[in-house]
């Protein structure tokens, strides 16, 4: 390999570091109607009356829409493959509002000022209803959040709107209780992870225009352009052929932009008015009306022999989907399916869950997608079990962890074909100097340092569902246009896919031209989520290149007047060794543009029957101030097995970024509501994400394995990297001061109170 596994710069690097106008708002037309959304002050209410007459008279106001103006056909904003597992429970505007911040009216005018003025003049009379804010009380509550008749679940996910259930399932071994009886030690605990905001630095935004073919063009900062096309068409109740979606450079996603949070509003305004329109969410809106991580409560019962062999794992998850069900039925699955298989040696497992509606902001996809929550619980209880058995937590893991070649019954019975988790553990342990630091070191002056670890696994794409496709054409002088439908969120997939193409086509990366997604011209891709791009779309690149090379050879042979069987292609020329004849790619490309019946173009799709997990070990060294309970991360060491690393620099930064995001989740990030259901953490003042002084020193290394189903042995990396931070830090805090925190975030008061109780 010449290009795969090298740290080349991203193709768009220079544009990004010189501040070029490449993002949605930078390229929006100047004459857009400005849209703002009037939002509900109540967690649960029915709109009795809404009067927009006075507001409409404000000079510069173009139009105001209410629930009376929109199609009465429900849809989901979840960016998922059709038929979506998420229920169709949304209208563009509904008479029933279900959380503080739910949209009541769409206001469009010539500028921000007039729109803001008009918003104040809209008169709404609400019938305020009792709300459900505690997700433990939602199931089978007499208050129904979605009583409507046209609520609909497309897939059998156990959803029932008459029980406030977005999903429900029972899976695994029914006789597990018998196995528990045989265990020497049985432990059960409940772990609570809160909602977290992804907070990409670019807030949610899109603009819409009408083109000369009378089609709606939506330019959106999204991870899922093809799903946005469907969602917009569904919402507006128009033909999908009427919608075109373009994805320019986007300023971060992390799953937030896997939901079409707001594209339907500018699409609707432009469809109704014919005018260009745009909607830019403020940070406050992005905090109060978006799609944070699902709050989950995970209860695990675990049984083992006294020498530390885990025999049974029983896991129950209660997940809060909020007011709408986006990604509710699917995130919850990962809380078990990606936590239990880490200890696949256990002979019995059971996994059950309920996903409930409440009157809080709708949850959605966030990096890790449920695995993060489940793994926090699993990796915490493993340490608790180790303590109970009096075994070093590393030894306990070594006895039970999944290894290469193991069958993983709880992971859809897939086999771990490539797994270097054991080597990751060994290396991470050495990097932190575990044996000298475990469990704690008293630093004097009231500070204690502790170390703790966490395992993590994820998948690589959604098996039997996701599709990645690319197309490559040969252009003048033999350069290649690589067309992708996958969204580069900044992590560099445009570059990484070009690297794979250059490797296959035996050329330099500069000879591959790539650009953003346009649903009219890009080949279909389910989108950039589920850690699928490098693994899945990368394989589509490999397949496409193979096909294209055959075409190049065929045409080259034809021009050389020899049999195609006798020629080969080395990236620069097609040649016939026996006859010493050759023709350059440049000549083939240029010749092909005159009197040719064989297009130098290939396009292939790829979908995978398996979703091979990447693995990771993260070890945190924290310092706890025993006088205040404050926890600082001093060092974080991580070793990742993502198969073959395509671009080490990009993979490293992505890992460091994931760990830092996980540190935020572990220590500060918390979506907090008042008892009336309005959000308190609505800005970066109240919702604290880590700064560069909060993350300590993060060090990342790779331990490679070879995944036979991935291109050049690749697995994924996007999500696995966020999962170890919370359990590793919680375990490190326990090892430092003996306080077990089972509810995130690990705030100073929780630690301090825990220390007081112990005294």
């Amino acid at each position, binding site marked *: 390999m010449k290009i795969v596994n090298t740290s080349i710069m991203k193709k768009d690097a220079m544009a990004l570091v010189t501040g070029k106008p490449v993002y949605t708002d930078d390229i929006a037309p100047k004459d857009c109607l400005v849209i703002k959304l009037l939002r509900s002050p109540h967690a649960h209410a029915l709109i009795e009356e809404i009067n927009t007459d006075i507001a409409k008279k404000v000079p510069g106001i173009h139009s105001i829409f209410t629930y009376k103006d929109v199609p009465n056909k429900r849809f989901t904003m979840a960016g998922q493959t059709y038929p979506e597992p998420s229920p169709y429970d949304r209208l563009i505007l509904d008479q029933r509002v279900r959380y503080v911040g739910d949209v009541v009216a769409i206001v469009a005018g010539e500028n921000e000022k007039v729109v803001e003025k008009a918003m104040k003049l809209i008169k709404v009379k609400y019938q305020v209803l009792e709300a459900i804010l505690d997700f433990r009380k939602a199931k089978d509550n007499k208050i129904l959040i979605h009583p409507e008749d046209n609520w609909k679940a497309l897939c059998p996910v156990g959803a029932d709107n008459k029980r406030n259930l977005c999903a429900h399932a029972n899976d695994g071994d029914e006789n597990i209780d018998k196995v528990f009886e045989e265990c020497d030690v049985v432990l059960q605990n409940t772990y609570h992870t809160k909602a977290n905001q992804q907070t990409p*630095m670019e807030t949610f935004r899109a603009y819409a225009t009408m083109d000369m073919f009378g089609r709606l063009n939506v330019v959106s900062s999204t991870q899922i352009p093809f799903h946005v096309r469907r969602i917009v068409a569904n919402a507006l109740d128009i033909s999908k052929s009427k919608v075109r979606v373009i994805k320019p450079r986007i*300023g971060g996603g992390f799953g937030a932009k896997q939901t079409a949070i707001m594209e339907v509003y500018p699409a609707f305004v432009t469809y109704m008015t014919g005018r260009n329109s745009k909607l830019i969410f403020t940070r406050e809106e992005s905090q109060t009306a978006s799609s944070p991580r699902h709050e989950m409560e995970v209860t695990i019962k675990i049984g083992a022999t006294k020498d530390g062999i885990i025999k049974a794992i029983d896991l129950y998850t209660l997940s809060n989907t909020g007011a709408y069900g986006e990604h509710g039925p699917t995130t919850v699955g990962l809380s078990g399916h990606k936590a239990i298989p880490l200890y696949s040696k256990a002979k019995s497992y059971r996994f059950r869950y309920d996903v409930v509606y409440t009157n809080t902001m709708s949850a959605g996809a966030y990096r890790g997608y449920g695995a993060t929550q489940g793994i926090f619980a699993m990796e915490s209880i493993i340490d608790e079990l180790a303590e109970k058995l009096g075994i070093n937590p590393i030894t306990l893991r070594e006895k039970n962890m999944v290894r290469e070649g193991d069958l993983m019954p709880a992971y859809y019975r897939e086999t771990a074909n490539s797994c270097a988790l054991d080597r990751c553990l060994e290396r991470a342990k050495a990097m932190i100097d575990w044996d000298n630091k475990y469990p704690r070191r008293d630093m004097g002056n009231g500070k204690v340092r502790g170390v703790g670890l966490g395992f993590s696994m994820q998948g690589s794409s959604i098996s039997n569902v996701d599709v990645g496709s690319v197309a490559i054409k040969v252009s003048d002088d033999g350069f290649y246009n690589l067309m992708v439908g996958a969204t580069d969120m900044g992590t560099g997939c445009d570059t990484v896919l070009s690297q794979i193409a250059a490797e296959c086509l035996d050329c330099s990366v500069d000879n591959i031209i790539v650009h953003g997604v346009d649903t009219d011209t890009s080949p279909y891709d389910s989108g950039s989520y589920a850690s699928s791009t490098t693994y899945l779309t990368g394989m589509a690149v490999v397949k496409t290149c193979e096909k294209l090379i055959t075409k190049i050879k065929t045409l080259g042979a034809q021009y050389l007047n020899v049999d195609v069987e006798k020629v080969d292609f080395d990236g620069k020329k097609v040649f016939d060794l026996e006859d010493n004849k050759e023709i350059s790619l440049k000549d083939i490309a240029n010749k092909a543009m005159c009197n040719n019946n064989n297009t130098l173009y290939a396009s292939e799709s790829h979908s995978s029957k398996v979703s091979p997990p990447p693995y990771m070990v993260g070890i945190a060294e924290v310092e706890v101030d025993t006088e205040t309970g404050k926890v600082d991360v001093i060092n974080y060491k991580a070793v990742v097995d993502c198969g073959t690393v395509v671009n080490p620099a990009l993979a490293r930064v992505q890992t460091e970024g994931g760990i830092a995001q996980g540190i935020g989740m572990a220590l500060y990030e918390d979506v907090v509501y008042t008892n009336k259901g309005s959000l308190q953490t609505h800005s970066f003042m109240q919702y604290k*994400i880590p*700064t560069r002084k909060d993350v300590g020193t993060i060090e990342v290394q790779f331990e490679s394995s070879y995944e036979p189903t991935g291109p050049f042995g690749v697995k994924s990396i996007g999500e696995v990297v966020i999962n170890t931070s919370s359990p590793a830090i919680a375990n490190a805090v326990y090892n430092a001061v003996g306080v077990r925190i089972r509810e995130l975030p690990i705030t100073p008061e929780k630690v301090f109170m825990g220390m007081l109780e112990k005294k």
Partner: protein
Amino acid sequence: MEIKLWINGKLTEDNIEPDTPLLEYVRSKGCLSVKRGCETSNCGLCTLWIDEKPVLSCTVLAARANGKHITTLEGLQEEAKEFGEFMAKEGADQCGYCNPGFIMNVLAMVRELKEFSDEDIKEYLVGNLCRCTGYMGQFRAVKAFLNYKRGGER
């Protein structure tokens, strides 16, 4: 109200609404590198210079810039490229949305500080949030850049 100022060396005179934030004003003048990530002076994305001093333009009124010199990344293209190479080599450019504000502050830091301990660097840049990189790559880039500026290798 009338204002008169220099944006990247170019004299500009305008009649503006008194409550226009400087951020919106410079964007309307084509300085699209200046980004908004919040409304509460917490993220540093909107960093630009007034008379060579970095400020958060989301919470400064355009009126305050009257008679002053504004610099944005558009006016520092060569320096941005020079430092940006170090960012790109580390893969720390990522989504890029925080890059302009961050780079404005790095370039101001290089002008302002004489000595650079690791803590000084973090302290100077602590107001520049980045959600993608976890900051390590940015830090490596800054260190490598400073080393190069002192006559070290690229």
